[in-house]
């Protein structure tokens, strides 16, 4: 997995709440059997009309916005468990998604793919949107080590929470599979014990 430490960049605002993973990557694109190529279909039905022409008022199509940070409305990534949503965001070029709330499965999927979900307070999310509205070239600094996101021009910042284990994985580019495989002996012992535990519960 790709390492993540800090990122300083401009951002793309997407001021919509409850963005579900069906919008991030519609079901008809889930027929692939590898992980490549999802970026071009990111937000497909919001980015393009039915004739394939870019939808002008959708922020991803507006030249004034760019950067590897996506700032989105509350409850981002709800709905389907499809990891393709995280692959699509990553392949399109995003490295950070900021929202005031993330759905659980999406958050896990993002972290497992080196895409950092930064959860901020609703008030700070408003500040972020306001900063981009004022200047669409505003830069933001995301510092994973210090768990801090900052609006560079004003210096306003907020700390964000992240599981300590996941933070270590992201900073070092580790993933869960290697870790779990290193635990196979403990897992085998657990399997032997499982029946005894059930019997103990009855007594």
């Amino acid at each position, binding site marked *: 997995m790709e390492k993540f430490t800090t990122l300083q960049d401009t951002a793309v605002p997407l001021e919509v709440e409850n963005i579900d993973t069906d919008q991030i990557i519609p079901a008809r694109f889930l027929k692939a059997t590898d992980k490549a190529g999802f970026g071009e279909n990111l937000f497909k039905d919001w980015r393009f009309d039915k004739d394939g022409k870019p939808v002008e008022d959708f922020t991803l199509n507006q030249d004034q916005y760019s950067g590897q940070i996506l700032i989105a409305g509350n409850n981002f990534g709800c709905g389907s468990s499809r990891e393709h949503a995280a692959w699509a965001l990553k392949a399109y070029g995003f490295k950070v998604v900021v929202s005031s709330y993330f759905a659980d*499965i999406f958050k896990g999927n993002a972290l497992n793919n080196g895409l950092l979900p930064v959860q901020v307070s609703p008030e700070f999310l408003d500040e972020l949107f306001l900063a981009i509205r004022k200047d669409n070239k505003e830069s933001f600094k995301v510092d994973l080590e210090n768990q801090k996101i900052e609006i560079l021009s004003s210096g306003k910042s907020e700390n964000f929470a992240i599981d300590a284990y996941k933070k270590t994985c992201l900073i070092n580019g580790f993933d869960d599979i290697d870790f779990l495989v290193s635990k196979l002996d403990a897992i085998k012992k657990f399997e032997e014990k499982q029946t005894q535990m059930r*019997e103990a519960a009855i007594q």
Partner: protein
Amino acid sequence: MKKTLFDKIWDAHVVESIPDGPDILYIDQHLIHEVTSPQAFNELKERDIPVFRPNKIVATADHNTPTENQHLPVKDLLSRKQLKELSQNCEENNITLYGLGHPYNGIVHVMAPELGITQPGKTMVCGDSHTSTHGAFGAIAFGIGTSQVTQVFASQCLLVEKPKRLRVNVNGDLKKGVTPKDVILYVISKLGTNSGTGYFCEYAGDVFENMSMEGRMTVCNMSIEMGARGGLIAPDQTTYDYVEGREFAPKGEEFDKLKAYWETLKTDEGAEFDQEYSFDAEDIEPMITYGTNPGMGIKITGAIPVEGGKSDAKALSYMGFKPGESLIDKPINYIFIGSCTNSRIEDFRMAASYIKGKKKAENVNALIVPGSRQVAAQIQQEGLDKVFEEAGFKLRQPGCSACLAMNDDKIPEGEYCVSTSNRNFEGRQGQGSRTILASPLTAAATAVAGKITDFTKSLN
């Protein structure tokens, strides 16, 4: 210490807890399908890691499968490739597959319970958010992403943080025409789509105690629609009666021993929850949704709320509805009875009992899709197929079908569909389609009337 049902099962499956980090949670049953598994199998191959416990995995083909001519090669080449890869991957890794055409084939969340694979006290995962369905049996069941599918392949375990505990109580008597689907749509409309985020939800109270297993599955299925990782209901005699005698359920002495364990799983009196909500059954009426997330629901005779944010306006514009409007008498062109929420035999009995002796309206395309081959067989045995056919409904072969429209069963752009599925997201049932979520009874009544109707007046 007093423990909840959720704690009891979770704690019995922790291999190790990582300080300041997640638990290593042992998974008793892994369910897979064609859409979220291929990349996981590829990852294993690239890392040269074998599948650790193939006998704890069961595969089915459901998301992509056609609902007509299942005996013929699948026409869509990408779907065919995905199904072929699933067969190959299962064969190479000694995993049991109930593929297209197998008598046990069906939607993963319908076939596993009916085969007795789903049992109380188990931990179960699947690369599908509606894995929460299996919680109806008093199991910890939740949806995972493809990276986690790989983790379970490699170790039969997952690294997960323990969610918080939530309890939703519904007590009292349900009114006539109010079904389990209405109960869960009501709860989600009251609590919102992210109220359950970070939680595992236990449903308690006499409404759930009196519910059939099919009804409990419908409720638990939609736990994810309020953001909860999963939902669960304490196992009881209804659960044991459902499980006993099924193909892969424990038998004889083994069943009795396990049952004695299952009976210990109930939430202890006085155990604490991090969050709790209570509702009265008497307040619940048949529900429908008007927006583009499952939380945007109203009673069928109600009006679309007037107040709302920017995102609500976007949803109403997509649906072609206005604030303050009633949906009664709205003409509807499609109804779909199917999906892992409502494609079990009880759902079709409910729909058929309303439809019997009536005809669908001319303007309606009515699609009936059983959740599994076994449900399809039951429909035939009970003669429900004739009821549907005589009323002009199309009865198809099993699969996920028009719930997520990965196959040919799509709702055309701009058309309205009253659907028993779980999601009304933009374009969910096909690009530009407009979905109104409801119970099988409401869908059947809509098909007959050709428009949304307050059918409760006509119920005996």
